[in-house]
């Protein structure tokens, strides 16, 4: 559960997270925007299926892996939000589709 300080009010970016519309500030990372949206968890692990949220926010821990615009296992803390982006939880091991 996270919230924005009042100055973070320019929420002009809109993207899709698991079918819900999420507003974000330009320059936000996907990880930050999803944390504010109260997603519960952003991935489940491929080993035991345990739920995880971002841990390090700086590209090191790989706990923020998400599917972004159809590409699995993206580090959501290194990707900036864009209008119209489609973001999903990374559920376990990635699939290998075309």
């Amino acid at each position, binding site marked *: 559960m996270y919230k924005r300080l009042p100055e973070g009010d320019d929420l002009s970016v809109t993207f899709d997270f698991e079918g819900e519309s999420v507003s974000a500030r330009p320059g936000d990372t996907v990880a930050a925007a999803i944390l504010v949206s109260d997603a519960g968890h952003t991935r489940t692990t*491929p080993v035991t299926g345990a739920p995880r949220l971002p841990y390090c926010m700086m590209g090191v821990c790989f706990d923020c892996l998400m599917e972004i615009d159809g590409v*699995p*296992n993206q580090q959501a803390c290194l990707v900036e939000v864009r209008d119209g982006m489609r973001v999903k939880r990374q559920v*376990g*091991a990635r699939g*290998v*589709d*075309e």
Partner: protein
Amino acid sequence: MQSADVIVVGGGIFGSAVGYGLRREGLNVVILDEGDNVLRASRGNFGLVWTQSKGVGVHRYHEWSCESAALYPDFAAELLEYSDIDVAYRGGGGVELLLGDDELEARKQFISNMQKQAAGSIFDCEIIDRQELQKFAPDLTLGEELVGASFSPHDGDVNPLLLLRALHTAFDRRGGRYLTNRRVDSIDHRGSDFTVHTAQGDFTAAKVVLAAGHGAPRLGPMVGLNVPIRPQRGQVLITERARPLFPFAMGSIRQTNEGTVQLGNSKEEVGYDDGTSLDVTRKIATRAVRCFPQLAGVRLVRTWGCIRILTPDMAAIYDESATCPGAYVVTSHSGVTLAAINAAHVARWIAHGEMQPGFEQFSAQRFDVQAAA
């Protein structure tokens, strides 16, 4: 000074399988191993239980590989029982992918030569076309250049890291002593006993087995054994975990039971340098994507160089010293494939002198003959 019936020098897959088998025969066994940062083929290999390319020039070695593959289901079950570790053995046959007509023709020629060499003995490898290959994985997209594959019903794979851990665990639970950080400095032979010297103490036994990989050529002459092996580097790539994609064993692209995809087939003569090079890893990645285009989006997480242990004719060496009876050398590039037979027939040979038919063909003396001729 610690004593044992047998000292096995080397705790990789080869030494551990032989040591485990010797312990199963009721002998008091010590396995001496080195530390954390030494050349270890057993930590870097590919995990294939593989026969279709084995035994060129030494057909007994092809048969030997097939015999080990046949022992694998029971061997894996036994390891599960004694270690609680499932080594993820997958039999049912394996394929070697063929890209383009040149590879197809070369493979056909190879099979034809092997059939001649077999002269009625076992060699069950055959060419399958794209359609038959597709039947192994109906949803998989085959690269346009894939013309087919060679298939052997004896082939399969295993998780090599789990295999090593299972061997160490089962050996330990059955009362063996696996000791690390024990680099062997020298071996003496006095009377009927061997004394093995390490910086951490001496060990004595009536029998000593050299399973030391690239360390064996240094130790062999101390007990009258010639170990003519050389290093050859193979680079291996491994990807992030993916959902099951390849439900069958393949020679150079293999999905592990954990979901990672292992790639590799390079051969380089670079001594003991176990690094990697981008020109080679790029070639391996390129071939993988040509075979299966959907691999293009899968991420590589690690690469490494592994130093193969090659004998002059690629077949295993199993030998007992003529001048120091009770000293043995066991070595081959194919530790995973041969683990089952090493734990069985090879252990019984060392323990009781029982030799399988044609086993004498694996003596290193075959190279003396070749050198003289």
